């Protein structure tokens, strides 16, 4: 991934580093700024090199902080990655939540389409986030995996609210929501790991079929697919 792209995505307003040397900034402001820089450095370096190859030395040189500062704020590389991963996941989930709420509709299909569509658009426009949030989190150990599971599980209630609209909702197996979210994330993983996150929005109609058919059956799924436009 080109450095400028990483830089632009991480620091869209060009805020960058605080002035070095003596200044009158309160200590907690400095600490917070350093923490943010280290977290953003972690996101950028992991997107470029992958989690395994990333070192603490990469982080401190990119963030422009000392090794001592790093270890004041993080126990180790994994600890810093978890903070970075959490930041990326929160940004992604914010987009999804906005997507669901878009248009203020209470129609389930419209909300689901808005949520998945917003996520796909976000990933297509933010390849760094796609790489770190979708691909690298998987291989980075148990804490990252728990964080991922937590994010994934937060989608289940949205999907499962479809049960209120079908006959005999209890007959639909419990794991259906997990299969749908897992299927969407598996496809995102494939595309993001091949560097094709930009292609993801094209998959929205098919993902709508995936989300709708398990609750409402094949015909409704096809209908939802056919009335779904690929986001611009």
């Amino acid at each position: 991934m080109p450095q400028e792209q990483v830089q632009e995505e991480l620091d869209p307003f060009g805020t960058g580093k605080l002035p070095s040397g003596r200044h009158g900034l309160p200590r907690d402001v400095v600490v917070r700024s350093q923490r943010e820089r280290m977290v953003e450095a972690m996101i950028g370096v992991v997107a470029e090199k992958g989690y395994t190859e990333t070192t603490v030395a990469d982080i401190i040189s990119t963030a422009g902080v000392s090794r001592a500062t790093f270890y004041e704020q993080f126990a180790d590389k994994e600890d810093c990655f978890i903070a970075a991963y959490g930041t990326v996941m929160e940004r992604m989930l914010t987009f999804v939540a906005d997507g669901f709420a878009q248009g203020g509709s209470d129609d389930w299909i419209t909300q689901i389409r808005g949520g998945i569509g917003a996520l796909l658009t976000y990933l297509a426009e933010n390849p760094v986030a796609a790489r770190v949030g979708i691909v690298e989190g998987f291989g980075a150990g148990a804490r990252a995996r728990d964080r991922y599971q937590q994010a994934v599980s937060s989608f289940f209630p949205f999907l499962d609210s479809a049960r209120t609209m079908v006959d005999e909702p209890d007959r639909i197996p419990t794991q259906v929501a997990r299969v749908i979210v897992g299927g969407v994330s598996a496809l995102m993983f494939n595309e993001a790991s091949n560097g094709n996150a930009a292609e993801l929005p094209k998959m929205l109609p098919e993902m709508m079929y995936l989300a709708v058919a398990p609750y409402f059956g094949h015909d409704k799924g096809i209908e939802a697919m056919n009335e779904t436009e690929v986001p611009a």
Partner: protein
Amino acid sequence: MNEITPSRLPSGRHNLPREFVVTSQRDRLLDSMAQACAEKRYAEVSVADIVSRARVSRSTFYEIFPDKEACFLAAYDAILGRFVTEVIKACDDPNLTWPEMIELGIEASLKFLAAEPAFARMCIVDMFSAGPAALERYLSAVRMIATFVDAGRTMMPDRKDVPESIANMVVGGAAVVIRAEIVDERTELLPEVGPDLLYSILVFYMEKEDALERSERYAERLGFVTTS
């Protein structure tokens, strides 16, 4: 994993052909790798762990494998071969309908994983942290299984309009369900998610009611009390 792993050969001088000794050492290393991965993360497994478990020397390890990753991939390939054989044996019968084939395939897969927790963890959890070659193997296994699922489009009536990508997504989604069970240390209970997975696959390729009934019959066959 005792099937792939003969116990240790008698030490000291013996008349066994060298090739046989190497095979046995290799098998022990493969088995040790899988066992080590069941206990800790792949990243934390060292060549020292593997050789001490397998009771072979470090130099023997490096005669057989260039590095830890090669040993991991060889262990995965060895046991994947057995997995595929078992699953195909369970569902490759021309007299079976497509939904029956899917049901028996799911059942055999989950049974195998439940009986081989080390392999289950290796192929569904550790494949993501063991480098690009491991990841490519994982994705190709998913694609292979997806071809069986995608056959539903042509083998079931009126389902030509199901998108081709659904099979890959559904198999990936089923793997997420399985991964969650393994991570939560319920590997031996994996067969219980079978009926849910069956519904989640069949519903795209047949009427919803028919998919529900098949899933419920599967649950009853496993001895689960249905809630409805």
